[in-house]
């Protein structure tokens, strides 16, 4: 057993047992390490592309394959009508509409409230600033389950008589807003804090009101930050499961989002609804966020990293 001493002083302790083409390849790459790193890079990239995209391809193949036909890598007789079947089975259009309305209205509420809060935390000095920020941060540590019981009782009218939000958009928009607002507050605090004081002062000297300076100077100048917070809030709400499922009875007329639609397809059982229809419904549900990812990927990346590395 030989112990090769490397030029950098390290010791290579592995016994050399295998000989053959692999051995020769190893020998050549030791002389030219760049080649090995390049090869590793391509293998890893292709591996990750395959693993992340394969499940989507599986959904597509499953949707297009006619009932009772075996799955093939390329379906021979694709059946595109399956996408129409989804809309026949359940009121999928309404579920999608509900999801988009919930996501857009939550985003509007969050952007307005988080803009005011982000302005305060980013640009004003006042007693209690740090404790208040920590308090808001603390919310993100709690699981949705810890808020659920009292909110359910509140929204079903068991706390304040006559106030029943269950099965209405409010029962979801309110929890979504408070759950996802902290992230937007932190993103906007960072962006608003970076605007030079001089610009705000100039607007104030020109006679703009305090709020006017926020809405006409600070927010327009931080447009990328606002877009980032908006895109992340929209995606979070569209993807949310917990309150989306538990704050309505799953009926499209009662503002159930796509969680309700897909679960009702799944629970109808395979004799009522084929697996192909479930797969097609899932593909339709992914389309809005997939477009958003392609269009706004820079915003998503900067938002996620800014929000998380803030602490």
């Amino acid at each position, binding site marked *: 057993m030989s112990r090769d001493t490397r030029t950098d002083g390290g010791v290579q302790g592995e016994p050399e047992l295998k000989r053959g083409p692999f051995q020769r390849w190893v020998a050549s790459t030791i002389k030219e*390490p760049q080649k090995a790193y390049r090869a590793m890079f391509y293998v*890893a990239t292709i591996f*990750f*592309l395959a693993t*992340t995209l394969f*499940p*989507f391809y*599986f*959904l597509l193949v499953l949707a297009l394959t006619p009932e009772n036909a075996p*799955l093939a890598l390329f379906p021979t007789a694709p059946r595109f009508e399956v996408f129409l079947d989804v809309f026949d089975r359940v009121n999928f259009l309404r579920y999608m509409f509900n999801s988009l309305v919930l996501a857009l209205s939550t985003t509007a509420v969050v952007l307005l*409230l988080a803009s*005011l*809060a982000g302005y305060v935390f980013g640009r*004003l000095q*006042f007693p209690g*600033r740090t404790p*208040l920020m920590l308090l808001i941060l603390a*919310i993100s*540590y*709690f*699981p949705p*389950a*810890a*808020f*659920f*019981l*009292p*909110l359910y*009782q*509140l929204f079903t009218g*068991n706390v304040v008589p006559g106030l029943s939000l269950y099965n209405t958009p409010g029962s979801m928009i*309110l929890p979504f807003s*408070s759950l996802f*607002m902290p992230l937007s507050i932190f993103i906007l605090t960072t962006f608003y804090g970076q605007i030079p004081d001089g610009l*705000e002062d100039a607007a*104030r000297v020109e*006679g703009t*009101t*305090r*709020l*006017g300076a926020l809405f006409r100077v600070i927010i327009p100048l931080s447009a990328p930050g606002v877009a980032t917070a908006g895109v992340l809030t929209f995606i979070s709400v569209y*993807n949310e*499961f917990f309150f989306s*499922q*538990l704050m309505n009875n799953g009926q499209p007329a009662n503002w159930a989002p*796509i*969680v309700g639609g*897909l679960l009702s397809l799944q629970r109808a059982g395979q004799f009522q609804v084929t*697996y192909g229809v479930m*797969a097609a419904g899932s593909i339709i549900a*992914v389309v809005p*966020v*997939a477009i958003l*990812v392609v269009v706004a*990927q820079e915003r*998503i*990346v900067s938002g996620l*990293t800014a929000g*998380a*590395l803030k602490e």
Partner: protein
Amino acid sequence: MSTEQETGDLSGGTRTGAYASAVRWMENLSETQYAYLLLSPAMLLLAVIAFWPLLSTLRLSLFADSFAAASVGQFVGLDNYVAIITGQRTALLPSPFLPQALTVQALFNSALAVTILFTVISVSFETVIGFVQALILDQDFRGRRWVRVAIILPWAIPIVVQGMIFFLMFQPNIGFLVGTAEDPALLNQLGLLSVTPLANAQDATMIVIVADVWKTTAFMALLILAGMQSIDRSLYDVARVSGASPWQRFKLITLPIILPTVLVAMLFRTIQAMRIYGLIETVAGCTTVPSLSCLVVTTFNQRLLGSSATIAFITAAVIGVVVSIYIVGYARGEMA
């Protein structure tokens, strides 16, 4: 600060009286008063929808279960906590909180054990794979933008779709990963999966872990990538000139600098993983894989309000413990 000047008259000239007086009132507030005024809408929302429910959950957890109505029985103090942690309540709960025995079976039936198992395994895999993905995205190559889109895409899809994908993939009737008893698929023959994996606690937990790693590794990769890109590139030039190999450059420069970022990313993922609910509900159902959040909902569905609130609070406490472990570890790392 110029924000305390009185300028309301300039813009208020043509407006109605009420608007002008509101503007003037706002202009004359001190900076502290103005700060609290702007914070009030956000704080009001958080007070009603976050702080009140938290305190209310804590209060509910101190009352006994009442089977009759949608409310709780009499005040029992910490009895619920004692009963759940010692296992006296197990017979009533849909799934036990702690493992009932030291067998694999019992481990996968216990809410606490399944949640911790899920969190530890999925977060470790996500960290390692996310690291490799970040190394790839850190390179300059053609088509980088599209590789990044492909890696982010699973992160951006609804949880219910993620669950649907893995529910369908492991359906016995579809027969691509899972065969039947007569015609077993490769994974069955290797003994890795039973022929009804979604009804088997162990198999279903593993499938849920794979699904979670598939979806959320991107989050880890993006955070680690941000850490890598904040490294001063001239450090690498110095290392290259002094003859360091790429591996040495990685070990001596990249790794130590981004370690804090990796820890923060792991903390974030751990908090999220401990809340797992929707994925399980879609893939296998909460009775097969009883995570802590699942147990809160199933207990609630059985009208055990006091027990449900207690488990919700224990879940929050477990997350709190994990967060403080990370913070202590982080502080220790900073000092060293």
